């Protein structure tokens, strides 16, 4: 197929209609008048044709100055300044009198005075009240037609601004500011055929090609005798907006799958907790800094404590270690502190609720992914609420080595194979450690997982005699890393960036 033939075959019906018309006229507004094509159809076809190299579009903007309603009134009755002068031609009058005689509004009068004074056409005589007197210059002006008046005449039926001198243009602009004239813009498209375009126009364009393949065409077998119009496969198409899961949910599901694969059961617990379940139950001292208002959201209300027997055992491990073999903290346990309602600061609150309420027997493996709260101000890396992931294993014979082994396995399942451990401190686990994973892409060690073995003081009240190893991680940090999002506010909350949520790349985990 020749190049010309190929182009002809690709032409859209609108292009086919427009092309022949261009032989006679190339101004869009005139084509609209002389054909059945609408303005928007011509615009679209002209743009497509330009993309194919068949026409050149030239846009010209013409400005037309016209009189406003005010302007037309002044053309008839005279400009306010002229009317002002006329009333005082032979007499000296005060403002009120001028207004009445000249039929001027307050605004008009005020505008006039400034203008007339600037040009020395009037002078003010101060008696009890201000009076106005015409000057000699004023009288001479009154006798001839001003530039403004001449322009009003010229603009009576509107006129293209390009025909006026620069001086006149300035005056028109002044008049526009006074709301006497207005300027309308008019876009005109000139569509000129290129050399290629002229060749194409010579071809037979009104061929009857198949546009959309319809059920009718299939039924009546029309396609057997006709040709299909070719499409420009390179042309731009409008963007699609699809439905998508949230990147954070994807991360949650990803972590959940790892846990379920490893045989863990999922937990659920309340967002509002008593300090008892959130802190006391796991031997966090009652004067621990994390309990302070700067860190924890309190409801300023009291909740109910669990059965007395359990509260007593917990109080004992705090006070003197109870039967755990510990010295305890050596203070008097305060039930009122334990009753305070707060927003849970970690998911371990739920873990201990399970210990206290569900009589979990070894061997057991549980996990939880839930929202937790910290009384913090919002910035690019901090929100007052975020998701925590937590898993624990309870069984005879578990050791520090097993904790590390499970944490490594967990990292491996996330695709991180190089890890190292650092001891740390945590009031309810001993040993406690941070596990660092080496991020190959970033080329650095990143601390994602915190872990430990629950302290004997933390487990004793629940009669748990076997080791419980546990680990946790922050979900947002992981999700931000996976999805290369630097500002957590774009991901979560009212400030979520819908564009990003729609368009973020599907990422390989790590």
């Amino acid at each position, binding site marked *: 197929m020749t190049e010309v033939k190929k182009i002809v075959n690709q032409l859209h019906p609108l292009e086919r209609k427009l092309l022949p018309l261009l032989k006679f006229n190339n101004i869009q507004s005139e084509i609209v008048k002389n054909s059945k094509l609408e303005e928007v159809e011509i615009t679209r076809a002209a743009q497509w044709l330009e993309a194919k190299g068949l026409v050149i579009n030239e846009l010209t903007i013409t400005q037309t100055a016209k009189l406003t309603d005010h302007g037309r009134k002044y053309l008839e009755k005279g400009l306010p300044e002229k009317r002002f002068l006329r009333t005082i031609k032979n007499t000296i009058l005060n403002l009120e009198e001028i207004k009445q005689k000249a039929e001027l509004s307050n605004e008009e009068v005020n505008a006039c005075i400034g203008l007339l004074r600037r040009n020395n056409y009037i002078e003010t005589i101060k008696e009890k009240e201000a009076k106005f007197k015409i000057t000699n210059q004023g009288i001479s002006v009154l006798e001839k037609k001003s530039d403004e008046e001449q322009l009003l005449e010229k603009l009576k039926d509107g006129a293209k601004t390009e025909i006026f001198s620069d001086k006149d243009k300035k005056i028109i602009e002044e008049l526009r500011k006074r709301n006497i004239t207005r300027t309308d813009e008019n876009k005109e498209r000139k569509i000129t055929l290129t050399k290629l375009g002229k060749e194409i126009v010579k071809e037979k364009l009104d061929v009857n090609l198949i546009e959309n393949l319809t059920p009718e065409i299939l039924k009546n077998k029309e396609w057997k005798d006709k040709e299909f119009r070719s499409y420009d496969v390179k042309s731009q198409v409008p963007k699609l907006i699809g439905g998508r899961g949230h990147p954070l949910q994807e991360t949650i599901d990803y972590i959940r799958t790892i846990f379920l694969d490893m045989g863990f*059961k999922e937990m659920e617990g309340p967002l509002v907790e008593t300090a008892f379940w959130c802190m006391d139950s796991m031997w966090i001292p009652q004067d621990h800094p994390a309990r302070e208002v700067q860190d924890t959201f309190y409801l300023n209300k009291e909740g109910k404590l669990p059965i007395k027997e359990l509260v007593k055992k917990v109080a004992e491990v705090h006070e003197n270690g109870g039967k755990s073999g510990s010295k305890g903290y050596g203070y008097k346990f305060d039930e009122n502190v334990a009753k305070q309602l707060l927003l849970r600061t970690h998911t371990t609150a739920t873990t201990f609720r399970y210990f206290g309420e569900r009589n979990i027997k070894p061997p057991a493996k549980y996990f939880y992914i839930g929202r937790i709260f910290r*009384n913090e101000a919002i910035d690019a890396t901090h929100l007052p609420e975020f998701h925590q992931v937590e898993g624990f294993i309870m069984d005879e014979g578990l050791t520090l080595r097993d904790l590390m082994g499970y944490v490594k396995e967990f990292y491996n399942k996330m695709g991180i194979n190089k890890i190292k451990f650092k001891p740390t401190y945590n009031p309810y686990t001993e040993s406690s450690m941070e596990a660092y994973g080496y991020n190959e892409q970033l080329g650095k060690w990143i601390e994602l997982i915190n872990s430990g073995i629950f302290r004997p003081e933390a487990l004793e009240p629940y009669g748990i005699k076997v080791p419980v190893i546990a680990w946790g991680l922050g979900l947002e940090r992981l999700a931000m890393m996976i999805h290369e999002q630097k500002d957590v506010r774009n991901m979560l909350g009212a400030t979520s960036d819908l564009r990003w949520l729609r368009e973020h790349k599907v990422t390989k985990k790590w």
Partner: protein
Amino acid sequence: MVILETEHKQLNKIIGRKLEIKELEEILFSLGYELESAEGDKLRIDITTERPDLLSTYGLGRALRAYLGNKNDEIKINKSNYKVNVKQPAKEWMNTAAAVVKGLKLDDEKIREIIRVQEKIGGTFLRNRKKGAIGVYPLEKIKFPITFTAEKPEKIKFRPLEYQKEINGKEILEKHATGMKYKHLLEKWEKYPIFTDSKNKILSMPPIINSHELGRVDEKTTEVFVEVSGRELKTIDMALNVMISALVGIGGKIYSVEVNYGNKKITTPEFKGEKRTIKTEYVNKIIGTELKTNEVKKLLEKMNHKVVSSNPNSLTIITDPLRTDIWHDIDIVDDIARAYGFNNLELRMKNVESTGETTRSVKVKEEISKLLIGLGYQECFTLMLTNKETQFEKMNIKEPGYVKLGTTVEQGINMIRQWLLPELIRVLENNRSAEYPQKIFEISHTTVIDNTKDVGCRDVLKLSIVNCHSNVNFTEMKQVLDYLFNTLGIQYELTEVEHESFIKGRNAKIKHNNEYIGNFGEINPKVLENFGIEMPCTGLEINLTELFRL
């Protein structure tokens, strides 16, 4: 985490070995601390809060020295005749322990270190002076015996540190910077604690401030009186030990002080660790090792514990007297594991049989999300924390009971959300420049008051959907509802209802088994105006907890 600022050369001197930065960094990491920065001789080291004894150059140096296998000399306490008499102390602040330190060689940097250690022990171990406070005085300015007592605030008169004139106890809390900072600790007490000397001059008013005249240490000072006062004797004894050890590092020799409580006399400081018997089997059971007793002994010594006797299966030790974080034998085992090196342990995964299982809430959420994403909806996560203006006022409805929050750091937060719809509308509000149609949903928890629960409220899983575009209408949302319930195989009924968040006559109540489970309809233009949205919206909210009996 607390930062120890120290000097590399000084540290090496105490360690007794030249430790290169890289080596130091590795040892710190394996012990659980971190070299934050090293610029020239200046080091900044992250120490975890349970170890205030590591917050001085001497304290850390001493720990590293033992770790590297060099014994530390025991801290020697010289006998003396210095006395502190306790006379009717404040009932909230009853105890004190003290020491005298001589032979100090101070310069500006050393004085700063003393102040830093004092501040950090006060800030961490003593819980921002809530449990106790430390005072240091030049010995030459004060006359023994010292009295620890309490007085009505108006009657306490002295010139506090770095203040231009003498003021009373009450004024200190109002006018002095440190007074204002720690005012909350004692403003409700009837009497404030004070130390006075034998000439009845005030040394200090703990836990607030020293006297400018008697309690100001400068570079000429070589001998000091150190006291810790507070609530519990055990705590302040420990704090005194830690403070004193920091002074030993700058050449100090320690002299004891007798504290006379009237009914009992104690001599402080006492560098007396605790006696504990550690069974080798217990250590191996926790860590998962097969260490021999003599190997355990070496590891204990690396951590500054003194082994006093041993038999094949166990060791009797005196714990490091500077340690404030040993409650249980498990803490000793952790020390042994750190000395061994966590990263030297061979990892293993004991097989623990159990089957994986998720919850019904998770499954419900998953199924509905899949259906909605299939319909072209974008999932959103909004915050649970919000405000009543968004939840009720802007939604044009009356304020019901809700879960209120106390003090919040972030402005614009005062409750936990009760429904999701207003939060999704806020997402639209912030995305007015994104392309339309905007079709979003969220499935998440909300919280409502429920006094039958121990926490006074209950979490409810809800689904909310919002459509926002120029041709939005009731039918479009009803189609979604219909599709969801049909595919989920759930019957529902609709009844007309007046709900001010929606347009009258264009919203409905959703019922299932005669129970009210949700609403949907065209959002009231007044609501849209409140959120500054100039595009019509429909909204839906369904209580999934109720619908699925979760």
